[in-house]
């Protein structure tokens, strides 16, 4: 029990620290959202002094007279009520609403793609390690090459080939915006549209991340296969399949699983580049726009959701580890 109490306290302190940092960081950034918006409008030609005045009226000036401490207390007060403030870029949309609308898309697509990539990578990695020295080994360089290609470039190439030239996949969006101008509706046609639109983005994520899992798993597999208990298992005359599955792969996968839990935690951060390339709705884009426009409330909201999920994923992993591996409990 002492182990769990210690872990929980540790995470509570970490949570407090991240939320406080989250409060502080944007305030250390220079700049004024109103300035940025005005300068952006200016690039499209003449803007009147009236517009400028209205922007300043709406967005306010960034100097707040109350002390940092008062702001900090007020920040916690609002946070506990679930109020994350109002976005400046998307004025006057509440940040919580923006994030709530973006999260399902991100978790659905990036989450699924991450799981597929993990299952595929670890599975193929196990086989590659088992059959090391055969043609299967070519999987390693070919997937790692895909991973080392800059993601945006890979994505643009795939869009250009499969969406623009071959017309196999749609070019943009989370669903067909031309077919469903009124937005999502609960029909099978819409679900089909979502799946169709998610395929290419998911493919790019899987292609660009599967190499890492495969490479790690294969190498763990190779070192696990030289362990004494594998030799024992072989000496006992067990079927090779059983040795591969129950003895080798199972042990070799432990580090990958730890890595996977952390990756899952960061899924909510979305995939900024993917969302830009495919105009896919999601959290990554919100973060990108918030930083671009000095939108503090939105930035804080997104960072908060990300940090909390990462912490939660770590916490759950800690507990799971404590259960499966008693050593972790002893030395924690």
């Amino acid at each position, binding site marked *: 029990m002492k182990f769990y109490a210690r872990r929980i306290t540790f995470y509570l302190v970490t949570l407090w620290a991240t939320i406080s940092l989250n409060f502080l960081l944007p305030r250390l950034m220079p700049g004024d959202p109103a300035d940025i918006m005005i300068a952006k409008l200016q690039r499209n030609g003449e803007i*009147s002094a*009236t517009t400028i005045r*209205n922007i300043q009226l709406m967005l306010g000036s960034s100097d707040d007279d109350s002390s940092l401490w008062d702001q900090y207390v007020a920040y916690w007060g609002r946070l506990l009520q679930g109020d994350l403030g109002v976005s400046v870029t*998307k004025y006057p949309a509440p940040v919580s609403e*923006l994030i709530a609308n973006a999260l399902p898309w991100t978790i659905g697509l990036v989450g699924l793609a991450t799981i597929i990539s993990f299952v595929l990578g670890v599975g193929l990695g196990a086989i590659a390690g088992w059959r090391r020295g055969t043609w299967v080994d070519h999987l390693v360089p070919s997937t790692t090459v895909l991973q080392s290609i800059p993601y945006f470039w890979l994505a643009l190439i795939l869009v250009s080939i499969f969406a623009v030239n071959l017309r*196999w*996949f749609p070019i943009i969006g989370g669903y067909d915006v*031309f077919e469903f*101008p009124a937005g999502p509706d609960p029909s099978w046609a819409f679900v089909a549209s979502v799946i169709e639109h998610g395929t290419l983005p998911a493919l790019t994520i899987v292609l660009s991340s599967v190499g890492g899992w495969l490479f790690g798993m294969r190498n763990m597999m190779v070192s696990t296969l030289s362990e004494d208990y594998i030799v024992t298992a072989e000496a006992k005359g067990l079927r090779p399949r059983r040795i591969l599955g129950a003895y080798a792969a199972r042990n070799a996968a432990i580090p990958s699983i730890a890595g996977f839990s952390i990756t899952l935690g960061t899924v909510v951060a979305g995939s900024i580049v993917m969302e830009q390339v495919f*105009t896919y709705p999601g959290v990554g884009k919100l973060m990108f726009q918030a930083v671009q426009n000095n939108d503090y409330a939105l930035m804080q909201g997104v960072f908060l959701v990300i940090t909390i999920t990462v912490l939660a994923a770590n916490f759950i992993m800690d507990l799971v580890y404590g259960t499966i591996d008693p050593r972790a409990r002893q030395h924690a």
Partner: protein
Amino acid sequence: MIRTKRRAAIAAAAGAAALALAFTGCAPSDSGESGGGDALRVWAGSQTPLTVTFNPYAPNVLHAALGPIYETLFSFNKTADEEPTGLLAESYEFNEDGTQLTVALKDGVTWNDGEDFAADDVVFSFEYEANDYANQVGLVSAEATDETTVVLTFSTPQFTNEFKLLGNTWMIPEHVWSEVDDFTTFLDEEPVATGPYVVEATTEASYTVVANEQFREEGKPAVKTVQYVALDANQSAQDLLAAGELDWAGMFVPNPDDVTSNGIISTINTPQDPTVLYTCANVDLGCAGEQTDVAVRQALNVAIDRGTIKDKAFVGLTGDISPAFTLMPRDEKWLADPANEVSPQTSDAAAAGQILESAGYVKGADGFYGKDGATIELDLISVDGWTDYNDAAKLIGEQAAEAGIKVNVGTVQWQEFSDARQTGQFELIVGGVIGTSVADPYQIYKDWFSGTSTVAVGSELQPGTWNFSRYSNPVVDEAVAAAAATNDDAAKREAYATIQTEIVRDLPYIPLVINATQTFFNSKDFTGWPTEDDLYVFPPAWGSSSAGVVLANLEPAE
């Protein structure tokens, strides 16, 4: 036990694999269908997720709100020197000294909710607090003298504010807006307006407007449905255009042929906004660096090879700039000296050297000019990621070096750029000047060159003034004031001649090029677009009031 567990695991794995298949393989592909249909699809520059606001006073107002939905009294064609076209009004007239503006309204116009559009609505719109015209332009009173006449009275001459008052004041219905408590938070999701379109549906990814059945012109608009989609990247818009899925977009595409080669999309380029080198020019207001010496600016001006910059940095799509900041040929009648029609397009290192030597500079052993042992060394910055500007800056650095002027080229983040120009703490910046909305360079002379539009280095400029160079010249100021007070072309030309002589010599902004403004449109399925031959209005989809005029004018092709 072990056996059943394993079976479950296999089943799970199979499930995952099936899911993977569903997501990675064999999805049907019918995305390329129907460029036709009825809806016209537009990208006006919005990004996802869209925030629904049709409030014309909101900074992030959706593009369809201005023009296609809300209208101004007149439409100004900023591509040509011509009289404005009446939208809600027939005609207008200034009194002798420009302090009174009488507008005659069209008869029989209704709001899209069926109520009559009345002179009182116009009065309400001009007096509406969000416009702040009492402070902005000195509006003393707005009065409806009869059903279709409105008289606006001002404390100062308003000849130069013609566009702002008639072409950029949105007409709002009194019966709706008088009940709006706070215009800053009003979303106006179902706008009541007079324009050719009304809102049909809005989502985070797109919004749709349909024809306003009450629109004053019979049979218009002929295109019944217009869908505005939000896109996050120019590349997506380009791909959609090439695939025939997007019908209208205004954006920069370096190789327009890639988009137009499908035989559906046509393109038009209407350069409007100058790109210049801002120089912090005025020592008296606190500028520092060698660029404060007019000889250095003049030498730089002739050392720059604009032809190369145009071809290499702007892929040949920009227009040639006039050092008098008159947009040629639109503003031709305001150009006093034909010699100032266009800035030199090739570099002349010898001339640059001569200018510097006669100002007392000597070439050092390292090949760079300097004075009293101190070499000229200028820092030139541009915003990181604006690749055309970054490339132009690099070229300028090389060209200056050839003429013996040392220019250190670097890039900065947005915020740094914004702070630098606002506070005047810079030497050289590649930046933009806002082109004027009417065929008259006045707004540039007043906002960018006059001493009343600037403040000392260290303080931020007032909103609506753009004199980043801190240039302040009493001769210019006097001429700007004289031009504002008259509606007589000859008197105005005289004032402009004075201004042009001063700024062409002093070069507080060293002219580079006129930015390209490209518009892509589907000329196969729709007709009536502005073209080179009939440029009846500024063509981009983000063009505010002019976008409404374009839409009302379109017709589906037979």
